[in-house]
């Protein structure tokens, strides 16, 4: 029986498998987060929209979590607009028209918001490159490990 796999090759493949599975998990999580698992009820949709909006008088709390009368009214407004058939985008625009992009808890894709998004992406990319470099380094036989110097199983037979 021939295997033809070195210890390093096996380790490298395992790492790639882990990386692919990790990437699939992240993609799946993002898809579920964005698309959802099925049609949501109006209170659920209202809650999701309120989660995205900043309570104007509290700053660091979402409209969904704030107990202020203003946030309460904003939640009522969101629900009323959903019942009248407005889309999520239209409702979010209703608030950004009045308060500006500042009302969104997620930074907008412009100005400093763009820098925030880009830097997060940059950190991920840098981390990915760092991991790839480490894998390459540790996955390539250096000659230091006596096991690396040994020929593959098939060749030894």
């Amino acid at each position, binding site marked *: 029986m021939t295997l033809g796999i070195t210890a390093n090759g096996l380790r490298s493949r395992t790492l790639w498998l882990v990386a692919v599975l990790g990437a699939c998990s992240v993609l799946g999580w993002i898809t579920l987060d964005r698309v959802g698992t099925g049609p949501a009820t109006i209170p659920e949709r209202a809650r999701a929209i309120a989660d995205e909006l900043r309570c*104007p*008088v509290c*700053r660091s709390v979402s409209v969904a979590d704030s107990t*202020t*009368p*203003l946030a309460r*009214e*904003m939640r*009522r*407004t969101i629900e009323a607009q959903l019942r009248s058939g407005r889309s999520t985008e239209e409702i979010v625009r209703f608030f*950004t*028209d*009045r*308060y*500006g*992009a*500042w009302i969104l808890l997620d930074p907008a894709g412009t100005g*400093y918001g763009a*820098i*925030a998004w880009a*830097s997060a992406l*940059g950190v991920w990319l840098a981390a990915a490159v760092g991991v790839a470099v480490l894998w390459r380094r540790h996955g390539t036989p250096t000659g230091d490990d006596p096991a690396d110097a040994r020929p593959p199983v098939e060749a030894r037979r």
Partner: protein
Amino acid sequence: VSAGDALAADAVRPNRLSRSVLLLAPTLALLLLLAAGLGDDPSARPAPAQGRPMPAFDLSRADGGEVRSGRLAGHVVVINFFASWCEACRTEAGALGGAAASHGADVRFLSIAFMDRAGDAESFHRASGHPWPMLLDPDDRVAIDFGVAGVPETYVIDTRGIVTERFIGPVGRDSLDAAILDALATGGSR
């Protein structure tokens, strides 16, 4: 250590240095940029309401009757959002009162209670000695339409009904006078 090793070490050192600079420089630049962004107060930027028609409203006066925004057309209007629990609102009472007295009938002043109990807001308004109407916005719907993010906030609307100025925090007499004069000038003749 041989001469060859020393030469190789010398060649590696600048390489490591340039790599560190390559990594550190953009990181430092990004951190500085983000730190500069932390000093920015987005709520202090011009409100989207500025330059747009005043949001329509129909609110009850605390002393009876109602005020409809449609009936204010042709007048410069100053709308002050306030609350009885707001300490900064006390400090601007003099500036608002002084401006109202000096501009007379050319300018309509209105106060709108924000996140407050009607009775408390009315007592506060009366104690301030303001002769203009105080309006009740029980659900803060009008405040949301204006984009109010706290009190005090003061809006100046020209004779065409366009919001020309927004003051966040206690308004000063000079800046309020200047905004009113601008609104009177930009709105044209009534």
